[in-house]
């Protein structure tokens, strides 16, 4: 923290412009959103009579250019030095109007925003008169605060031109690449021991029909070629300290146990006595405790599954000397970064036991498993076989784990059903249907769906092509999910799917099949730990929440932490890449200049009031945010509290304990609140609400 900034802070607080408040009050109709309920003209008129209010206007759109111009003109021409605006939510336009003030030459913090839309007109539409009165009181409170407001300067901090990308899937890789090419340092951490995430497990990606892994490989190669990117696989974030521009992140890396590659890898795997479910193939095959995640995985080479390894040492015997070290320990290190990209990805929905026959019948698999099954490098070498027999009849059931209905579907652990659409499963299923047709030209393929959501560019072509490929479509009613059951002993096909088909006027259709594929939806990867570390929050669908879906779709409420890819919600590869790039653009804009500006909402000590009681230091929960310093003046030494703004997050705990009222959080001062409370409770001058 450079000293001059602290001084500037202190100055800003200590020497407010000593001038009479001249307050400009503006009431926005919001194109009727507010104006239809609240009589904005009357609000402005009434407020105009309050002391210190120089102008009071109402306008159709305050946020529009003419609206903003009106404010700027008043500042310049009428000497307005405080602005109070009643408009939509503070989260939408506080910044907009601050910039207006700034452009007009006024300190942007001499502004107070009253939410008249979300908190008045939209919730009191039945009582317009009371809503108008409430608007007046809320605005009057704003005016009261404005009278006491002081100009503030943002805290300017140096920032590391270094970003941390968490997650080495396609979104993380894409973000890292963009950031690095922009000239920023990037640290990429990936929990597993290989890069590529879920995309590596796909057989093919739509809408280009490219094979997934070669496409991914090209991206990984580009990432590896960037000198600015440092990659840590097997690594997880263990903790973080700091703030935007200046995070110190602790990373814990699991060892691979194997150093590099060597020729006899297969032999090493063969001797390992431990057999485990292979996650890469979604359990369709097994692997050893020393294994290669998949054939062309990056980084190459074997990995030890520490959880299941018994350290029997068989592999060490077979491997070349020194290549395997079973005693390797996890280690921790820290990186200093300016911003964090969360690209933590998704996991496929795991159906409940018995949900459409899942786990109850071995012939029921999920769509990700089908990807593995049809993959030439998959457990059946790409042959469409199940249990050793060619699959001749297959049904793909859509919306398993998506678009769930309360009361029809079983809820997750948190009591909620997945009522969202997972976006990718329709086209993914359709593309798989065409792939099945290629592999098994005579197979009977059924797609059992609610709505076909082939929304994206070229997606509809998959639907058309599946139809032309003689895939039979059946449409089920949301309330009546298809039933999967065991066929008779003698039946040719092991399973029966029963659907009430909307397209066949509600007829009940029975389909004998060899394999049922559940098109499972997406769920976010469990990242509770990261949410706690970075203080980001999930939405009601459990995916990480953006600030505003339209205005700021990749940013979180925490400055310096952005979202990329499916951590935020279901997306396909193209959308993940676009989102990841957008996240990179935001990070670049934030830290590219090697400095970050922060809101000045930090604790401030009034040295005249402070008696050096030290109460504040005792309660401060932040490290090195406030301390007692000894000063000497005129031969008298005394102690005063001093704040380090970069470390203070403005929690205000110190404010409430100060016996001398010497402390305040800048911008949110206690005396301002007292004035606001008084203003709301006070009588309204010349209020003619009854008229």
């Amino acid at each position, binding site marked *: 923290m450079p000293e001059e900034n602290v001084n500037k802070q202190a100055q800003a607080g200590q020497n407010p412009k000593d001038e009479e408040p001249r307050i400009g009050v503006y009431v926005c109709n919001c194109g009727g959103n507010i104006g239809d309920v609240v009589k904005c003209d009357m609000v402005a008129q009434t407020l105009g009579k309050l002391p210190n209010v120089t102008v009071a206007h109402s306008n159709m759109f305050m946020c529009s250019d003419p609206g903003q111009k009106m404010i700027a003109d008043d500042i310049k021409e009428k000497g307005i030095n405080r602005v109070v605006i009643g408009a939509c*939510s503070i989260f939408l336009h506080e910044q907009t109007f601050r910039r207006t003030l700034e452009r007009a030459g006024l300190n942007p913090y001499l502004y107070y925003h009253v939410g008249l839309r979300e908190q008045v007109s939209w919730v009191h539409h039945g009582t317009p008169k009371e809503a108008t009165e409430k608007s007046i009181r809320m605005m009057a409170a704003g005016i009261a605060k404005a009278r006491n407001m002081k100009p503030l300067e943002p805290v300017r901090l140096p920032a590391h031109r270094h970003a941390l990308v968490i997650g080495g899937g396609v979104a993380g890789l894409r973000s890292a690449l963009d950031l690095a090419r922009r000239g920023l340092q990037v640290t990429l951490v990936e929990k597993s021991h290989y890069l590529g995430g879920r995309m590596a497990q796909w057989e093919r990606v739509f809408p280009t029909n490219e094979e997934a892994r070669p496409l991914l490989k090209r991206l990984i190669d580009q990432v590896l070629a960037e000198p600015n990117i440092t990659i840590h696989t097997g690594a997880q974030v263990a903790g973080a300290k700091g703030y935007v521009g200046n995070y110190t992140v602790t990373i814990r890396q699991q060892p691979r146990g194997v150093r590099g590659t060597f020729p006899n890898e297969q032999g090493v795997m063969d001797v390992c006595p431990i057999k485990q479910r292979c996650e890469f193939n979604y359990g369709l095959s097994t692997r050893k405790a020393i294994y290669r995640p998949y054939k062309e995985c990056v980084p190459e080479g074997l990995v030890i599954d520490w959880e299941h390894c018994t350290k029997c040492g068989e592999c060490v015997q077979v491997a070349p000397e020194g290549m395997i070290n079973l005693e390797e320990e996890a280690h921790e290190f820290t990186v200093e970064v300016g911003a964090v990209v969360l690209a933590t990805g998704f996991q496929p929905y795991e159906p409940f036991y018995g949900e459409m026959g899942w786990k109850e019948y071995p012939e029921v698999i999920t769509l990700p498993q089908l990807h593995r099954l049809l993959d030439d490098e998959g457990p059946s070498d790409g042959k469409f076989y199940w249990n050793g027999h060619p699959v001749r009849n297959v049904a793909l059931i859509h919306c398993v784990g998506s678009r769930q209905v309360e009361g029809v579907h079983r809820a997750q652990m948190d009591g909620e059903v997945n009522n969202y659409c997972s976006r990718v499963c329709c086209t993914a299923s359709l593309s798989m249907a065409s792939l099945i047709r290629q592999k098994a030209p005579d197979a009977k393929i059924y797609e059992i769906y609610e709505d076909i959501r082939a929304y994206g560019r070229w997606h509809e072509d998959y639907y058309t092509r599946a139809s032309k490929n003689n895939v039979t479509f059946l449409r089920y009613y949301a309330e009546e999910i298809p039933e999967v059951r065991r066929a008779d002993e003698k039946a040719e096909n092991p399973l029966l799917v029963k659907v009430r088909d909307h397209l066949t006027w509600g007829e009940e259709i029975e389909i004998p099949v060899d394999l049922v594929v559940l098109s499972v939806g997406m769920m976010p990867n469990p990242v509770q730990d990261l949410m706690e570390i970075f203080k980001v929050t999930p939405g009601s669908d459990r995916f990480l*929440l953006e600030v505003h879906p339209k205005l700021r779709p990749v940013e979180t409420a925490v400055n310096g932490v952005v979202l990329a890819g499916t951590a935020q919600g279901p997306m396909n590869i193209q959308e993940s890449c676009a989102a990841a790039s957008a996240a990179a653009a935001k990070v670049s804009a934030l830290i590219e200049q090697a400095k970050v500006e922060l809101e000045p909402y930090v604790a401030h000590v009034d040295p005249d009031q402070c008696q050096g009681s030290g109460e504040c230091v005792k309660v401060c929960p932040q490290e090195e945010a406030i301390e007692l310093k000894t000063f000497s003046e005129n031969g008298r030494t005394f102690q005063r509290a001093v704040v380090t703004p970069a470390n203070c*997050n403005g929690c*205000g705990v110190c404010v409430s*304990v100060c016996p001398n009222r010497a402390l305040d959080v800048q911008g*949110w001062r206690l005396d301002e*609140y007292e004035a606001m409370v008084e203003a709301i409770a006070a009588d309204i001058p010349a209020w003619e609400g009854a008229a």
Partner: protein
Amino acid sequence: MSTETENRSAKILLLATLSGGYRGADMVGQGHMDYPPNTYILPVMSAAIFPPKFYIDAFNKGFDAITVMYSGTDSPYKGESEKTAEIINETYGKMKELNLDPRRLRLAAICTVCVRPFLEEVQRAEKLLEEIGSVPRPLTKPQAVPAQPAGTQGGIFHAN
């Protein structure tokens, strides 16, 4: 009925944190749900800045119920939730001295998407005021002024 009485109906103050309750309140607005207009929401960065005196003063100035809507343990501020709870507890003590029903002050954890809990909190406060009426002002120690019986709002205002 005089305009004064009509204007000075019971008032509820909601101190809502910008990272929690205030967004929740916005969410209620976006859902176009309805709640009574005598609720006044003030945005606060952190609920821990208010000393007990602030609450007592607010009751004195004309509020009849106060709900602090903070983010609870989800708060972005370390220490906010414990400290706030501490302060509120301390305030209860002072309210008792002033013969103020402690139910008038509540601390509620309201998240950014807590639409239903928000509405429930508002309803609870409304119901409480229906039951126990407005705050008798000015606030004094119980021995000075006998407890006001719960009556109509207008009656209380006239009494003052």
